[in-house]
């Protein structure tokens, strides 16, 4: 009998190729058309307009969903107002908390279904939606459930009350997680919400609507209306809305802030970033490499707090670049549904074009450009992880937010130079500091103008930790007690 030898005797090397390990999408039942969620029921848009939802990994149609216009936004706000006055504002906090706990529990039970749908709709690798997005979304509901009956302890000695109906507009990079960040504190504080998911990723928010039904949340407490920017405008301009919470681009954030100022609405904004990841020569080098990779290539770099500017001490710049190149080439780019995929698809054709355009313009300014040599899938919106060095803070890729897997690298000689370079940006969302020396980390952290600072790690989140930025990165904080306050009025 001759049998196939899996390995050659005394062979000098063997290649170890991982067979595809695809997550099954059978769990997800995609409807042909997804409707708006108003007053506890799924209803079509008044004029029955729909939009296409595209799978970014294939470029093919996934499903259709309703486009909400002004009339639909009116209906949603009316339903929320009614629910607020008749049910939610009268309900004791402990009862509201029970609903939030229930939503958290159902999210955990249906986690796999959510993860699969999130990856299909957004292009992010299944391992990220499975291990990051969905568990953290459930954790946010769980955390704020605990606050619902303790609101009078938020501000010691003072009384607080809810606002009424709040409008919430969320981005496409962490679709379900951003919905959780918005809805959980608003509900815990006693408000009712009308939420608008991003037009490229409405599906998990609509599945969350099903969870609200399953949890028997009173109709109208959560309403979800889908559509493009015009849907968001209808919401922002609605007179019965007391507050707008927005996460997205700085450009749109400024427009919303202006409208809210004119109409006397409260507003919180979580906007863009160009965060610095600072590596000192006394850092644990191999672990810093992981932090750099996690900082910029996590979710294809489509993260508002991405560590998109690497500042590295000159003495170790060469080592870092050498190791980074090698590491980039071990990142597996491909089908988001494959459990071994590290880098999935860019969220949309539009974002894909934007990244390509910025990279082209950035490269044209000179410097040293390097990108992964891994092959790309033949279809879908895939971009190789890359970096550019030998440029300065004046260059395009050190100034604009790319929102893609693009890292710019600069060196520094002294801590003061590192601080100056890190703060040389219109943004101030996050920063990372890598050093084995605690006192140095404390010193640098105090001097950085950024809302979130990680020491020897990056992109770590916890529902109890406030998140938000300085300067053009936004107004207000989300998460923790600080994320609850913007949904409350204080009476002293």
């Amino acid at each position: 009998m001759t049998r196939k030898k899996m390995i050659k005797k005394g062979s000098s090397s063997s290649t170890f190729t991982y067979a595809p390990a695809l997550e099954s999408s059978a769990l997800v039942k995609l409807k042909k058309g997804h409707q708006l969620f108003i007053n506890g029921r799924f209803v079509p848009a008044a004029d029955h307009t729909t939009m296409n939802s595209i799978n970014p990994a294939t470029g093919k149609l996934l499903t259709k969903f309703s486009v909400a216009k002004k009339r639909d936004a009116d209906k949603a706000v009316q339903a929320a107002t009614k629910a607020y006055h008749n049910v939610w504002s009268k309900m004791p906090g402990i009862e509201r908390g029970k609903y939030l706990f229930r939503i958290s529990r159902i999210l955990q039970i249906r986690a796999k279904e959510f993860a699969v749908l999130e990856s299909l709709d957004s292009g992010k690798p299944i391992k990220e939606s499975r291990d990051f997005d969905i568990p953290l979304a459930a954790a946010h509901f769980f955390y704020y459930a605990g606050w619902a009956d303790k609101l009078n302890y938020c501000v010691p000695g003072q009384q607080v009350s809810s606002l009424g109906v709040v409008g919430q507009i969320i981005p496409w990079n962490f679709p379900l997680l951003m919905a959780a960040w918005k809805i959980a504190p608003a509900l815990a504080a006693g408000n009712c919400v009308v939420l608008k998911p991003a037009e490229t990723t409405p599906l998990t928010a609509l599945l969350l609507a099903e969870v609200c039904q399953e949890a028997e949340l009173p109709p109208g407490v959560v309403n979800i209306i889908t559509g493009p920017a015009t849907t968001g405008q209808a919401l922002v301009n609605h007179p019965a809305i007391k507050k707008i919470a927005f996460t997205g681009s700085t450009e749109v954030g400024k427009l919303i802030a202006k409208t809210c100022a004119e109409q006397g609405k409260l507003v919180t904004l979580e906007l863009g970033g160009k965060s610095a990841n600072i590596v000192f020569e006394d850092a644990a080098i191999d672990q810093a490499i992981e932090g750099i990779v996690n900082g910029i290539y996590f979710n294809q770099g489509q993260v508002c707090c991405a560590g998109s500017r690497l500042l590295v001490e000159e003495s170790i710049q060469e080592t870092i670049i050498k190791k980074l190149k090698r590491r980039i080439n071990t990142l597996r780019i491909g089908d988001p549904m494959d459990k071994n995929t590290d880098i999935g698809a860019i969220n949309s054709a539009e974002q894909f074009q934007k990244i390509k355009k910025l990279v082209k313009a950035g490269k044209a300014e000179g410097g040293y450009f390097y990108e992964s040599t891994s092959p790309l899938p033949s279809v879908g919106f895939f971009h190789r992880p890359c970096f550019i060095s030998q440029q300065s803070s004046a260059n395009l890729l050190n100034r604009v937010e790319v929102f893609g897997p693009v890292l710019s690298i600069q060196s520094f000689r002294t801590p003061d130079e590192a601080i100056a370079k890190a703060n040389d940006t219109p943004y101030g969302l996050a920063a990372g500091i890598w050093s084995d020396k605690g006192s140095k980390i404390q010193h640098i952290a105090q001097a950085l103008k950024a809302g979130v600072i990680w020491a020897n790690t990056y992109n770590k989140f916890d529902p109890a930790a406030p998140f938000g930025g300085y300067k053009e990165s936004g107004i207000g904080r989300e998460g923790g007690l600080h994320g609850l306050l913007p949904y409350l009025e204080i009476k002293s």
Partner: protein
Amino acid sequence: MPTIGLKIPHGGKVSIPYYPIDMVNVEERAKSFTTRSIKNAAKLEALCLAISMTDLTTLEGADTPGKITQLCHKAIQPMPESYVLGFKNAADFPAIPHVAAVCVYPAMVPLAAEILQGSGVELAAVSTAFPSGQLDFALKLKDVKKCVQGGATEIDMVINRGAFLSGRYQKVFDEIIAVKDICGERAHLKVILETGELITYDKIRLASWLAMQAGADFIKTSTGKIQPAATMPVTLVMLQAIWDYYCETGKMIGMKPAGGIKTSKQAIHYLVMVNEILGAEWLTPKMFRFGASSLLNDLLRQIFKQITGQYANDELFSVD
């Protein structure tokens, strides 16, 4: 970067880098390899590869000539080739390779050498007063010499942990060099750091570099007599040290995690890690070994599962 200066016995100096390792991140990265999903053809390939990398080990006071004989035969032929004929999809079974080496105490070396001769299976002897190393140094050298003369082709020595932990790095360095001298070209030298006694990753990294600089052909985590033995994060730190040493000197040093690797699943996690840290050139029995006593049968069981779709009975394979 801080370094430790050491004298080379016959003149000259060398400096050993001593830089920090971040515990939290190392453990996180090590865990990431366990989420890789290795299936189908890739899994079958990995299982066969793992067999060919196994150092089949018995290190008990109660070892008998009978047990050593059994172990050596099992090492040469983990499973009789015609054994699978009665099973479903028999023709699809891959050829089962012999294991990399048999690993025994010095007293068992002559017997094992006789059986293994010409088989292609290496003979590793644990030496230098394994596992504690608490013996006069001259006697440790004698121990090594005896093993090499008796036919051991690989020497698994333990470092002097007492000296290392008290900061007498020169002594540790000199001892490894002296053992390497005796091994010469006749035997490969594996240096056991006993990471379970060094505790911190910083120290493990330092000891790895020191051993490589002193002439180790392989660095090995553990004796298997101290808990914890091999772990993924410890192995990761050592693999990264091997890579950095290779970049600096051009020398490829092998890696052997030992102790605690009992299942195919664990073995595959290690292979994934080697693949992603060092690459395909290290995915060979020449450069990577598993020190294990109960891994082999689980690898065989999993191969049966892959081919026949059913788990093999525990008693199907001979004890090892």
